[in-house]
């Protein structure tokens, strides 16, 4: 029986000039009781807006079409009757639990409130209900959690609190908007498992909104693909992933494959040459600490690996493992406390100090960085050509003509249309911006490129193109690339070697096929188990 149904839903926002801006033009979907439907699309496709507007959580939105829940039309429903449904029969889990929980209220009180809104009960009854909800979401046995403020909990714990709020009144439907996107990979998998357990024990229907077909495929029975405010394709999950009909769905499947581990294992390294020459980057015994109050807290210790010319070495680990610190030290932007860092045979200075180590222009030219977010890492006042030529300071011997021809050369290498050279960043798409950043990095003929989460701010389809570009640069320019990422799927696709950083330091390093095929460290295995697999549901 259909529990929740959107038919020909449209959403418009009133603009300042009296007209309306359409956000969603035609979205239809149906969820049966106890089933899961995933709504998949890229950011801006209107998938979140549809569901928030349908349930009346978007102030000021003009909603057309119909949204029915359990036989009740939600569009135009009077506020009192809608409030009786929200939180009681429809529960919500939002993307970032850090911003969705009230920062000044204890989490136990926030759960208790969700219970009390819809049912009367004594203080003791509510407290008992909160305790059983905490147990349901796997947070039992820790009395301190209910008394904690959100800021005192980890991301995974916070999202479990959000889920406890969502299921506080045994809802028939949970709307989960990107519930795992803000979480680390290993936490992501356990939260998805929690959703499945709740569904199995309570028969709850779930609408999962996600940009990631991998996450959607892991949880959903049916998938609805949304683009530019319309449904482009919908169908049974397994069939849709294995045989996508629409070209856009195919694009999403390819993108999801990038983040998933290949079913047949990782192919042996395709490195053309490796051990024959001296490595471009050599790191051994690297240690770095930060000042924390009066003491110094170690961030990384005992890190050691090489990056050879014409190869991609990935540095992986969860957030906070110190990946970016290693990257910045390797790029000569930070001192290491101790250890050896050599770029093209030249040893970088080490010191227990902050600030940027003084390097010669020649050495600066050897290593370049690409940052995570091309929306903030490009100077908005400079044209693409000016941005690309920023590093001419480290090539003082190049004249004007050389600089100009070099700009065109690297723009071509980064597959950047020459017509874009006079544009400024706000006139570019996300992918074009990141290509500009890559061209800028290539400009001084570096031998080492450090790419720090260079994909994570990009749309899934753009990510694939940038990955292909990095692969191409490795092969044609003989670049050594240090790829810093949390995404093991990307590593499996593109990297030759991998270094795994855990909370305790470097877990292991080696060829990707060896590390992924037979991981020696339990931590690496944990990370690998957490990667969604396109061909099946989440493990466990």
């Amino acid at each position, binding site marked *: 029986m259909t529990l929740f149904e959107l038919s020909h839903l449209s959403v418009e926002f009133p603009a300042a000039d009296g007209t309306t801006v359409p956000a969603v033009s035609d979205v239809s979907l149906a969820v049966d009781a106890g089933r899961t439907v995933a709504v998949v699309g890229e950011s801006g496709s209107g998938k979140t807006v549809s569901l928030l507007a349908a349930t009346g959580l978007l102030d000021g939105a003009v909603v057309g079409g119909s949204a029915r829940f359990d036989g009740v039309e939600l569009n135009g429903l009077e506020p009192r009757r809608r409030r009786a*449904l*929200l939180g009681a029969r429809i529960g919500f889990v*939002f993307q970032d639990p850090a911003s*969705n*929980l009230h*920062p*000044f209220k204890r989490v136990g009180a926030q759960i208790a409130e969700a219970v009390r*809104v819809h049912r009367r009960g004594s203080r003791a009854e509510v407290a008992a209900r909160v305790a059983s909800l905490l147990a349901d979401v796997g947070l039992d046995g820790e009395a301190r959690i209910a008394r904690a403020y959100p*800021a005192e909990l980890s991301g995974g714990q916070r999202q479990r609190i*959000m889920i406890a709020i969502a299921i506080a009144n045994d809802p028939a439907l949970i709307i989960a908007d990107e519930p795992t996107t803000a979480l680390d990979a290993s936490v992501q998998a356990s939260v998805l498992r929690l959703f499945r357990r709740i569904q199995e024990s309570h028969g709850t229907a779930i609408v999962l909104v996600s940009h990631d077909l991998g996450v959607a495929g892991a949880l959903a029975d049916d998938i609805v693909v949304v683009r530019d405010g319309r449904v482009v394709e919908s169908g049974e999950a397994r069939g849709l992933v294995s045989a996508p009909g629409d070209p856009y769905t195919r694009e999403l499947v390819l993108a999801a494959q990038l983040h998933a581990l290949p079913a047949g294992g990782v192919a042996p390294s395709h490195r053309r040459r490796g051990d024959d020459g001296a490595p471009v980057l050599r790191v051994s015994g690297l240690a770095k600490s930060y000042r924390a109050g009066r003491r110094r807290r170690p961030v990384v210790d005992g890190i050691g690996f090489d990056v050879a010319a014409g190869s991609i070495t990935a540095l992986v680990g969860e957030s906070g493992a110190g990946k970016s610190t290693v990257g910045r030290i390797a790029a000569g932007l930070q001192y290491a406390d101790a250890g050896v860092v050599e770029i093209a045979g030249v040893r970088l200075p080490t010191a227990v100090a902050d600030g940027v180590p003084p390097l010669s222009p020649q050495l600066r030219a050897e290593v370049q960085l690409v940052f995570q977010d091309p929306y903030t890492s490009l100077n908005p006042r400079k044209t693409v050509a000016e941005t690309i030529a920023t590093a001419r300071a480290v090539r003082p011997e190049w004249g004007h003509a050389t600089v100009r021809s070099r700009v065109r050369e690297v723009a071509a290498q980064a597959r950047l249309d020459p017509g874009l050279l006079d544009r400024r960043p706000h006139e570019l798409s996300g992918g074009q911006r990141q290509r500009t950043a890559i061209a800028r990095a290539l400009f001084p003929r570096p031998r080492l490129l450090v790419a720090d989460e260079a994909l994570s701010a990009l749309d899934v389809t753009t990510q694939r193109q940038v990955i292909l570009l990095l692969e191409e640069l490795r092969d044609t320019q003989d670049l050594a690339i240090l790829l810093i990422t949390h995404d093991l799927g990307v590593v499996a696709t593109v990297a030759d070697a991998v270094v795994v950083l855990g909370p305790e330091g470097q877990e292991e390093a080696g060829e990707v096929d060896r590390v992924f095929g037979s991981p020696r460290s339990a931590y690496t295995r944990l990370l690998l188990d957490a990667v969604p697999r396109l061909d099946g549901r989440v493990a466990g």
Partner: protein
Amino acid sequence: MTRLVLGRLLRVVITLTAVVLITFLLTTVAYNDPARLIAPDNATEETLASIRATFGLDQPWWVQLWRYAVVGPPIQGVATGLLNVPPSLGYSYVSQRPVTDLILEKLPATASLALGAFVLWMLVAVVLGVLAARRPGGPLDRITSVIAYTTLSVPVFVVAVLLIFVLYFQLSLAGIHLFPSGGYVPFSESPGEWARHLILPWTALVLVQFGPFQRIVRSSVLEVTGKDYIRTATAKGLGPGRVYFDHALSGAANPILTLGGIELASLMGGAIVTEQIFGIDGIGRLAVRAASTGDAPVVIGVTLVGAVFFVLITTLVDLVTHARGGR
């Protein structure tokens, strides 16, 4: 937390020391011969000289400061300086009474005026501020905005005199005696009369103060209404009252508490103009009288008490906002 408390206490001590030092130096410069205040009008030069010698007024200022802070005035032969327990603020030159007693006498009137007005204007400002934030640009927002800026630009003495004119004078002419024109009745004597005497001065202060405050509440609440956790509150099925007056207000409370604390603190030092107009014999009037007669110990004492209230209340607010969790 301990670190924070210790740090704040250190700041309190430094601030208060600076206040004592500065007011002491200012009064020594401004009032050059307190001996004439103490002596009878027809006193001879010898009498004046002996008074100066007794009070140490012929000593350099740092010796005088030392005596003020540590030894205390030698009148009854007991050490009664500022650093003793309980601290003594010296003796008034004019009334020949301990400054501490003078201030303690006036404190209830000032505290009644300040706390009552504070509670009233916080209530008015918070309710109107939150309601205005619910519909920014709506009728209530526009009306309160006009009222806020109008009352803000009218000085308190105009508001006070107008209130007296209308609610006391005109009503009395009509034979209705709702409010007295001024004065203060202690709460312990008659709670009803206490409130009746304070309503007009409270109203004057509320009218002058609530405007800017209402705007601050409005903008602080408006700043959090777009936050995700407000949407979570709505998604729980809470009504707009709970969403705005509980979730949004609690999220916006820190700046409101901080500014409210500062306002209350400065009122506790004496609402000079309001006390004058309504004839409330509080710390404000004491300060004005002392300053105009050159009664240096009272001036220093009143300033110091005001400063103590200020640092205590603002420190308390700091600790409260810190203890509220969040970040």
